[in-house]
């Protein structure tokens, strides 16, 4: 952890139970994959903290090296990286995401 942005990210994913790094905001997503992830979280009534990577070039690059994951969105639950849109969608469809949230004690909004 040499990159200071990694410390910032670590703080962010520790502070809130569910954190989404996305392009745009939940109300105005700027990318289909980010929009899809917001929609899934909405359907599950999950309260989450969103960070717009388009507002912060440092964060946009830092989040990719933080998780060794090349794309955005990225979802974190209780500090753990869950995945991008494909994984979140698949997990929501087969109930795994709901299970993970429950296991980790994340209450629905």
């Amino acid at each position: 952890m040499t990159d200071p942005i990694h410390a910032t990210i670590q703080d962010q994913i520790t502070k809130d139970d569910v954190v989404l790094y996305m392009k745009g905001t939940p109300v105005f997503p700027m990318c289909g994959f980010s929009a899809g992830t917001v929609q899934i979280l909405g359907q599950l009534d999950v309260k989450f903290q969103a960070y717009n990577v388009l507002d912060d070039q440092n964060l946009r690059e830092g989040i990719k090296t933080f998780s060794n994951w090349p794309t955005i969105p990225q979802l974190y639950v209780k500090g753990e990286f869950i995945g991008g849109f494909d994984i979140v969608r698949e997990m929501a469809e087969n109930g795994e995401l709901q299970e993970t949230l429950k296991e980790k004690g994340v209450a629905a909004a």
Partner: protein
Amino acid sequence: MPMSATEIEAAIRTALPDAEISIEDLAGDGDHYRATVVSSSFKGMPRVRQHQLVYDALGGRMGGTLHALALTTKTPA
């Protein structure tokens, strides 16, 4: 320069020789793909690791040259 489906398949095949790979060009623009990769290498791995293996195979092009690749990974039934 976008990547062709053949290039994507070849890159994945190099890293995961046993993989069954199917690639669809979603928009017909050589820029939005859907790939399904079935490989025994994924066995016992969390999904994030499975996808990371495929991204590694693409050698950093994912998120750059390759804008959109909807990915599904599976182990052989």
